[in-house]
């Protein structure tokens, strides 16, 4: 039986929430993101209203550039708690249409509506009802894509934004995709587009018609996955729980930094925030990636995979610092630094708890800072303190650069 998979994507979500909450912003270009500081701001655009997008502003663009293009826009700092609140409301509405809802980000979700036709009608009707329910409850519009699988549904929802509805009839997935540019394919980023275009592949149809071995030679195993998607095939089920694949934290400096001691201190702070996040979710990570953006916006990442998953600040920091030390920034200053962790394993409870030889010893500090039982207890205590009294109550005392101005 063909599945009925619905992808719901809120239109310009952060900006729309702001425009909804403050009616005088409606119809104006609204940019949610870092402080533009009169064109000297250093963060990026989180979201742009459709009015702002007409100027060519898009998310992830440097905020200073957005300011240059459109100095008259309304710049707003993000209010994530508010977006999370609205998002929660939208997800509740979606759960009224199907028990199988997979939230993939704050403003996007998949629904498996297979077998609900008798209740809500054919796909066209389902889409209308979902959009109507979201609008009447939140005042926001969403775009909906419906297809027999997740990949096609996601591509469809993006075709007629905002307030759009696009349905790919079952059995016509391949031709539906064929004319679309390759960048529309889920999982194809800028780099992959470059590689594929160099191979003469411009549309999803071009990709589908080529032999998969050719793709695999250029893109590896993930190429095969993309080729299958290009052929309109995607068997992945709609998961009820959105499963996190990675966590990340980053800091943009208020001015470019060349002092390694300052960067090392910031890496510690980032590792601290990140490790608390993953401990809170009872999670551990095996792969640690350093993200570094240099002056002029060139961005690099360096990853390393450990032998065992970790969630303590010491290990995350050590891995990130080591990547930083071996990274050659060729004299350029650093604009942004961040750490991401991926390759996640569940907590010790669900992977079975490997016991530690030295955990009960008195020599926890002797193992060069390796976290023994004492450090783990200490981390737990610090987590509780920070949850209760805020982040700034403690800081590591041994770090160089702690009392220096970042310059």
């Amino acid at each position: 039986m063909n599945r009925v998979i619905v992808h719901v994507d809120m239109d310009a979500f952060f900006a729309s929430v702001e425009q909804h909450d403050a009616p005088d912003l409606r119809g104006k270009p609204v940019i949610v993101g870092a402080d533009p500081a009169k064109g000297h701001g250093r963060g990026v655009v989180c979201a742009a209203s459709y009015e702002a997008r007409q100027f060519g502003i898009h998310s992830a663009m440097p905020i200073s550039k957005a300011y240059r293009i459109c100095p008259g826009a309304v710049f707003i700092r993000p209010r994530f708690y508010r977006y999370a609140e609205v998002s929660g409301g939208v997800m509740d509405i979606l759960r009224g249409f199907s028990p199988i809802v997979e939230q993939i980000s704050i403003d996007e979700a998949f629904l498996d509506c297979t077998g609900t036709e008798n209740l809500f009608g054919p796909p066209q009707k389902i889409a209308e009802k979902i959009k109507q329910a979201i609008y009447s409850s939140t005042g926001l519009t969403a775009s909906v894509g419906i297809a027999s699988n997740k990949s096609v549904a996601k591509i469809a929802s993006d075709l007629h934004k905002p307030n759009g509805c696009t349905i790919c009839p079952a059995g016509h997935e391949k031709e539906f995709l064929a004319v679309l540019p390759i960048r529309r394919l889920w999982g194809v980023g800028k780099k992959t587009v470059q590689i594929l275009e160099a191979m003469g592949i411009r549309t999803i149809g071009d990709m589908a018609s080529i032999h998969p071995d050719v793709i695999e030679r250029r893109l590896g195993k993930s190429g095969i996955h993309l080729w299958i998607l290009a052929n309109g095939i995607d068997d992945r089920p709609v998961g009820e729980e959105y499963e996190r694949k990675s966590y990340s934290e980053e800091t943009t400096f208020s001015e470019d930094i060349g002092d390694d001691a300052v960067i090392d201190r910031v890496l510690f702070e980032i590792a601290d925030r990140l490790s608390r996040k993953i401990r809170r979710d009872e999670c551990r990570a095996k792969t640690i990636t350093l993200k570094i953006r240099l002056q002029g916006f060139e961005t690099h990442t360096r990853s390393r995979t450990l032998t065992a998953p970790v969630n303590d600040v010491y290990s995350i920091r050590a891995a990130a610092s080591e990547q930083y030390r071996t990274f050659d920034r060729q004299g350029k200053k650093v604009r942004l630094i961040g750490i991401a962790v991926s390759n996640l394993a569940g907590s010790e409870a669900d992977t079975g708890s490997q016991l530690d030889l030295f955990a009960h010893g008195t020599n926890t500090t002797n193992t060069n800072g390796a976290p023994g039982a004492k450090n783990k207890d200490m981390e737990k205590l610090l987590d509780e303190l920070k949850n209760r009294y805020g982040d700034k109550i403690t800081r590591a005392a041994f770090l160089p650069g702690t009392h220096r101005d970042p310059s």
Partner: protein
Amino acid sequence: MSIVVDKDILQHAILIADAIVSSKNVNTILSNCLFHIYRDSIEIVSTDNEIGIRTRLDAVSDGEIFFTANGKRFAGILKELPKGEVVIDISENYQIDIKTKAKDIKANYTLVGTSKDEYPEIPFFYDDNVIEINQSVLRDMFRKVLHAAATDTIKPVFNGVYLVSDTPGMLTVVATDSRRLAIISRMMENDIQISDGVIIPLKTVSEVVRLLEPTGNCRFSLFENQCFFKIGETEIVSRIIDGQFPNYRQVIPKEQGITAVVETKKINDSLRRAMVFTREPVNKVLMHVGKNSLVLETKTPELGESTEEIPLESNAEGIFSIGVNAQFLMDTLKEIDTFSMNIGFTGQMSPITISPENDDRFISVIMPIQIKSA
């Protein structure tokens, strides 16, 4: 200036030095080896900033010169040339011309070299308080513990092998990643003085193991924060890891409540089959130890399960059950070359010890995986 040398001997020496050169440092001087030709010999030096290698070989030369060249390329062209001698000319601007004496190849190969100016100084072998160690004994000791060291450098003291002599005449090497530990001690023919142990980086130990030969002695010394090995015509210098090695004596159980003897190959084969039904990274297998049998059991949600019984002799009364990472066990078993082995247990939360039969100076310790008590 010009040298004449057997191409296989030169190729071999270049490869010894080049082994530590990372192909990642493409544009730096460290992607090259340093060559020093003098008094009818060639000295080749390499370093990755943590380890330095210096090796030498005989060659007929007509002068002295220093230059650097890419070792991989140099060895690469030598490998492709026919056996026999090659004539190498080095020009003043470090062009390295390589010609074979073989009559049937009329060719000229020129490798671009550089001056030695930026190449770091590599310390020479430190000749005081030298310890002589039998090469095959040392190689065997290192090989048997290497698997227990941590392969990542997150906790530096675990990313190495601890070398100590705390009993007169006896050398002990230990490696651990905090979940398992391997320790081996052997009596030495010569006097040794390493009462304060040193932690040698894993990469250095791997290089040393690669160079050690089945016969003869090698030389070992320590100076400040560096250690030195001299093996044949090759010297290795390495930093030693700063930090206190954990108190390993404390975690090796003195007495085990349950001791068992099992055939090494039988438990190894059985574990290999059981591992099909376990998942990374825990690879959990349950061992149920009875008086005359060992049952290996796996149960992995959404994957499958297995049980297998093999014979064993133990003093267990009833059945003792414990969980363990099957990969850790397999890593240990690979280093046991006796027909049967001893396994000891004290409790579900206490270390498991494994030794070859009749050799209690090679001990592997593995921490179990906590299991919910039934």
